């Protein structure tokens, strides 16, 4: 698998209330290869959507470069329009993404018209609908969004993206608004598209079960940075970063069970406090004010590093990587 999209030292900043600067994305390196499904997880406000939008060229990075197939993203309006045909966005709420007055046919054909895709429009629409699991496609042509179930609507949105034959889907919480029974079907569809079309996907979610269900790799984000990246099997069954460990611990319904591969066996680690503020990123390791290891007491020298020394930025490559002084000290090789 070769590299499809790569973010290099990417930062996204917003002007927040009172003139402060919110460092929503604050130095991220991440690669998605052709045909690969990467899950981007982390709590609300950690910068997932900002990162996803910058990958699509929808927000201008304050710093860093995004390369698609090796080339930096175009900066002209025309260049960006061409790029967005290859990298498509699927949003959480299918109802909001569809125009209630447009039929399913029009919803899917719109993108084809905007990008002046050559070929028989009817055939292209039908093909995209049936790939998205709406079969026979003709039956849905004249239906309006309110006549469809939530899952069917999300399929229409996905069909609209597929019609343009993209190489990358960026899906922001694609199943969060769908019912349990529909969720699995949409996720299975993403897996099938990867298999049939070698479609890569970056799936933004705070659902770790979703990552387990479909992703090859997972990137865990905390306050604008990636804190742990690696193959799903490794990161989700033997998490090394205290934040990832906490996220996973609150999922288990049997609190007594220790997490495989971790030193923690004391039940769910419910981090107190709200997601931290990107206008005031703590010094040292940005997780230190909430870190359970610091709270439990670390050797003096290590605690000093946690409080004052920033953790090096992960390269976002294929091997498992952890942004934590303690984890790094345990594994001097990584």
């Amino acid at each position, binding site marked *: 698998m070769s590299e499809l999209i790569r973010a290099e030292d990417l930062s996204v900043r917003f002007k927040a209330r009172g003139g402060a600067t919110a460092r929503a994305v604050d130095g991220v390196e991440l690669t998605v290869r052709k045909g690969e499904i990467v899950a981007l997880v982390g709590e*609300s406000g950690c910068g997932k959507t900002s990162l996803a939008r910058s990958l699509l060229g929808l927000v201008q990075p304050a710093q860093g470069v995004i390369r698609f197939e090796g080339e930096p993203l175009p900066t002209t309006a025309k260049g960006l329009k061409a790029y967005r045909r290859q990298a498509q966005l699927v949003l959480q709420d299918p109802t909001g993404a569809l125009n209630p007055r447009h039929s399913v046919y029009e919803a899917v054909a719109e993108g084809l018209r905007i990008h002046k895709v050559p070929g028989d429009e009817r055939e292209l629409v039908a093909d995209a609908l049936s790939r998205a699991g709406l079969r026979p496609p003709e039956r849905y042509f004249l239906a309006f969004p309110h006549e469809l179930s939530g899952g069917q609507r999300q399929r229409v949105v996905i069909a609209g993206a597929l019609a343009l034959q993209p190489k990358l889907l960026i899906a922001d919480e694609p199943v969060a608004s769908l*019912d*349990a029974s529909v969720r*699995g079907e949409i996720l299975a569809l993403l897996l099938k598209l990867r298999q049939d079309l070698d479609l890569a996907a970056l799936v933004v979610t705070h*659902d*770790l079960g979703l990552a*387990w*269900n479909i992703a090859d790799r997972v990137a865990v984000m905390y306050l604008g940075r990636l804190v742990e990246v690696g193959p799903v099997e490794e990161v989700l069954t033997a998490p090394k970063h205290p934040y990832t460990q906490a996220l996973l611990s609150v999922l288990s*319904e049997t609190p007594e069970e220790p997490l495989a591969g971790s030193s923690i066996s004391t039940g769910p680690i419910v981090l107190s406090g709200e997601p931290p503020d990107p206008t005031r990123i703590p010094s040292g390791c940005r997780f230190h004010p909430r870190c359970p290891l610091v709270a439990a007491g670390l050797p003096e020298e290590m605690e000093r590093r946690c409080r004052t020394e920033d953790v090096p930025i992960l390269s976002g490559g294929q091997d498992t990587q952890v942004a934590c002084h303690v984890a790094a000290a345990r594994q001097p090789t990584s």
Partner: protein
Amino acid sequence: MSALLELRDLTIDYRSRRGLVPAVRGVNLTLEAGQTLGMAGESGCGKSTLAMSVLRLLPKTAVIGGEVLLDGEDVRTMSWGRLRAVRWAGASVVFQGAMHALNPVLRVGDQLAEPITLHGGAGAKSSSPADVERAVGELLERVGLPRRHAKAYPHELSGGQKQRVMIAMALACGPRLVIADEPTTALDVMVQAQVLKLLAELVSESGIGLMMISHDLSVLAQTCQRLAVMYAGRMVELGPSAQVMHEPAHPYSKALAAAFPTVGDPASRMAPQGLPGDPPDPTNLPGGCPFHPRCPVSTVECESTDVLLRQADPGHQAACIRIEEVAGEPV
């Protein structure tokens, strides 16, 4: 002694332009003080309708049959005065999407003060402003928020904080039963864990009864002793959480449990599980077992037999004629 909450043959139909919409079709249920019960099922199966009926909060178009007993007293025939008292001090509801229902122009503390002033409670000695203010502060602390948040407007709080305020509101007058409708949907994992932990602590500290509604079985299993699964207005399974989650006796519960994978379980790795077919239309329910058009193990008999709850294990029931075979295999 009568149970804290008892539903007897509860039926609820909505009158609408499409005719009668049967939303709840014969539910029997008991909840004792200190017990926790989770209600699961997909969108439209009747969870919120059932919850609202407990406090007679349904719209006028709703036609209710059967009995809703709070401490043995039928909610359906209570006088308005009695009902108002019961709504705060007897039982209270944290509504679905309620965090959006906070009044945007009123400070959080003032919104919490209102029921305390009107109905007493939250340990307020009197309805004097100083006593009420102290009670509001204690209430906020009880749900893990600093007292100073009393001065905040809703838009200054995060989703998780607003949801805590809603829980504080429900607790204001010391109810004995709390019904929480999707209390953590739309919150992220860590905040969800905080809210669930809070609810669990409230139950164990004050012995209230808790009925929690969610479409996510795993969320319910974390907090509740028993789980009920609803499909098309009926309860199709009821039993201890761990059993319903890991050894479901009804094919629908099985599909629901499989939809939320256990991280680390090799069986669900790269294998998302869905349930084909559309959710049932309450105005046009199939005959026989209502799940039969989507059931992977249905037989000809299922198309004509109206299946009621039957025992799977002691304390564990399911409405399926193939209960033995289904219950035999784990998820």
